[in-house]
C-alpha cells in the first residue's frame, strides 16, 4: 500500500519534471523578451542599435502585409531546397563511393578538404561570376556548404556497418542492391540523419552568403536593403526569419529521425 503511494508520488514528480523541462525553452524565450523590452524601455542601449520588441513586431506586421517578407523567404527557401538536394545528393553519392573504394579518398580528399577549409564567403564572389547572378549561384553556395557534412557522415555511416552483418548478408547470397537497401542504408541512417541536421542549418548560411554577394531577392538581400534604409527593426525581423527557417528544417530532420529511428528510441528507453 505504502509502496504504491510512494511510486505514485514519484510518478507525479517525474511528470512534473518532464513538463518543466518542456516549458524551459519557452520560459527562456519569454525571459529574453522581457529583458529586451526592459532594455529598450529604459533606453539602456540606444534604440538605433537595439529596436524595441514593439517596433520589431510592427516591422514584422508591415513586411507580412505587403508580402515582401513572404516573397524574400520563398526565394531563400527555394535556393536552400535546391542547394540541399544538390549538395546532400552529391555528398551521399560521393560518400558512398568513397566508403566503398578507399582509393577514391586518397584521390579526392585534397580537393574536398581544400574546399571545406576555405571560407565560402571568400570565394562566393567567384561563384557569382561563374554561375551567374540568378538563383543558380546561391544554389551552388548552399550546395557547397551542405555537401561536406553529408559526405563525411555518409562515409562514417557506411564504414561503420557491422562487418559481421556484412558476413550475414554474404552468407545469404545478397547482391549489392539488397545489401545496400537492407543493410547499409538502414545501418548508416542514424549517422546520415545527424549529418543532415548539420546540413540543413548550414543551408541558410549558404543561401544568405550567396545573396549577400549579389542578388535580387531573398532574405540576405532583405537584410542589406533594410540595413541600407536604416530600418533596424526589419533587419531583426529578417534575421529572426532565418532563425525560424533553420530551426524548422532542423526539426523536420528530427521528425524524420523520430519516425525512422523508432528502434533507437526504444533501445534507449
Amino acid at each position, binding site marked *: 500500500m505504502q509502496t504504491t503511494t510512494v511510486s505514485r508520488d514519484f510518478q507525479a514528480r517525474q511528470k512534473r519534471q518532464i513538463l518543466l523541462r518542456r516549458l524551459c525553452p519557452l520560459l527562456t524565450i519569454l525571459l529574453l523578451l522581457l529583458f529586451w523590452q526592459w532594455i529598450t524601455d529604459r533606453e539602456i542601449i540606444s534604440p*538605433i542599435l537595439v529596436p524595441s520588441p514593439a517596433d520589431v513586431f510592427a516591422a514584422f506586421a508591415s513586411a507580412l502585409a505587403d508580402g515582401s517578407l513572404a516573397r524574400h523567404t520563398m526565394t531563400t527557401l527555394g535556393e536552400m531546397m535546391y542547394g540541399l538536394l544538390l549538395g546532400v545528393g552529391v555528398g551521399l553519392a560521393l560518400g558512398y563511393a568513397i566508403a566503398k573504394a578507399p582509393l577514391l579518398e586518397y584521390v579526392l580528399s585534397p580537393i574536398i578538404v581544400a574546399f571545406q577549409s576555405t571560407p565560402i564567403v571568400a570565394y562566393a564572389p567567384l561563384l*557569382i561570376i561563374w554561375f551567374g547572378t540568378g538563383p543558380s549561384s546561391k544554389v551552388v553556395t548552399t550546395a557547397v556548404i551542405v555537401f561536406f557534412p553529408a559526405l563525411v557522415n555518409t562515409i562514417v555511416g557506411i564504414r561503420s556497418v557491422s562487418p559481421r552483418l556484412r558476413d550475414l548478408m554474404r552468407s545469404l547470397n545478397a547482391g549489392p542492391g539488397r545489401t545496400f537497401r537492407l543493410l547499409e542504408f538502414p545501418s548508416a541512417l542514424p549517422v546520415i540523419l545527424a549529418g543532415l541536421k548539420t546540413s540543413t542549418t548550414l543551408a541558410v548560411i549558404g543561401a544568405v552568403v550567396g545573396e549577400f554577394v549579389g542578388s535580387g531577392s531573398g532574405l540576405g*538581400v532583405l537584410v542589406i*536593403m533594410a540595413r*541600407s*534604409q536604416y530600418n533596424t527593426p526589419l533587419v531583426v525581423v529578417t534575421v529572426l526569419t532565418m532563425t525560424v527557417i533553420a530551426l524548422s528544417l532542423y526539426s523536420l530532420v528530427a521528425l524524420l529521425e523520430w519516425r525512422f529511428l523508432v528502434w533507437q528510441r526504444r533501445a534507449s528507453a
Partner: protein
Amino acid sequence: MLYLKRFATILALLVTSMIGAQADLDQERILLTFIPNVQFAPFYVGLQHGTFSEVGFDVELEHLQEPEVLDLVAVGQANYGIVSGEQVILARSRGRDVVYVFEWFQQYPVALVHSSELDLSNLEQLRGLKIGIPGRFGASYSGLTTLLNSAGLTESEIELNEIGFNAPEVFCLGAVDAAIVYANNEPLQIRNLTDAGECGDLEDVEVLTVASQVDLVSNGLIVNRSQLEEMPYQIARMVGAFREALRITIDNPAGAYLASLSYVDTLPSDDALITALTEAAARQQAFLADGPSRAEVAGSRRTMLEGLSRQFDGALLAQFHVLLDSIELWDADTLGYSDLVSWEAMRDILALMNLLGDDLGDLGAAFSNEFVSVSDE
C-alpha cells in the same frame, strides 16, 4: 605597507607620464567605408604630412559598411565618419540625428559604363537595356534611379541584374549591356581590359555620369548633433585638417600616391615608379610655389600623367589613374561646400524610390556649411 605606498606612487607617476606623452593629442577614430584604397588618399596624406596631428588629433582610420559607419557616429561611439549624403537623408528619416559638415565629393561618383557602340546621347535609349548593378541599395541604386528618372523611364522598362561588385568581369563576359559603377574606378579597369583585348569583342567603353544629369549630394564627413553643439571647435579643427589634406592631395597627386603606399597594401608600385613619383612630386612642389590657378594645377596633373604614361604601363599606373579621376570629383573652388539644391534633388530621388522613413524633418538640418570658410581660397 610603506613600500607598497611608495610603489603605488611610482606606478601612478609612471602611468600619468605615459598618458601625458599622448595627452596633447586627442584620440579620434574616423570611420570610412569600403576597404583601404587609393580613393582615401587625402586621409593618408593627412596622417603622413601631420595635418591631423598639427591640430591636435591622433587619427585612426577604420573601414566599415556605410550603415554601420552612420549608426556608430549617430550613437556617439565614433565622432567622425565618411558616408554619402543619401545615407544621411535616409538615416535622419529614421531617427538618426547626424549632420554632414564637409562635402568631400563635389560630384556624385556613380556612372553608367557602356560600349562605345551604344549611343546614349538620348537617355531614352536606356529602354530595354540589360543593366548590371551591385544591388538594389546604396548610391549605385540611387544613381541608376536618377538616370532613369532623367530619361523619363522606370525600373520596369529596363532589365536590372544584381551582380555584386563584379562589374568588370560580368560586363566583359557580355552578360549585361551596361553597368552601374563608380566613375573613378571600374571604367578604368574595364578600359585596361579592352586595351588588352580581354573584354570580349568590346573595343572601347563610354561613361555616362549621374552628375552630368543632376547635381546630387555625395560623400562627406558626418558628426552627430550633440557633438556639434558641445564641441564645435573640435569639429572645426578636424574639418580644417581634412580640408588641408584634401588640398595637398589635389595639388600633388604624385606625393599623395606615395603617401598612400604605406596604407594600402595592394597598391601597385615598383622602385622605378617610386623614384619617378618622388621626382614628379618634387617638381610639382616647385611648380606650386608660384601659386598657380586651379585650372593650371589641373593642367599640371594631366602633364604629370602623360609623363608617367610614357615610362610605365597601364596596369602599374591603374591606381594612380583612379586617384587622378577621383581628384576630378573632389576639386572645387570652395572645398567642402554643400548646396541645398543637391540635397533636395537627392531627397526627391529617395522619395521616388520609396525609401524614406516617416520623420523627414528639415532638410536644412541635415548639413552645415558653418565649418567651410568661403574665403578659403
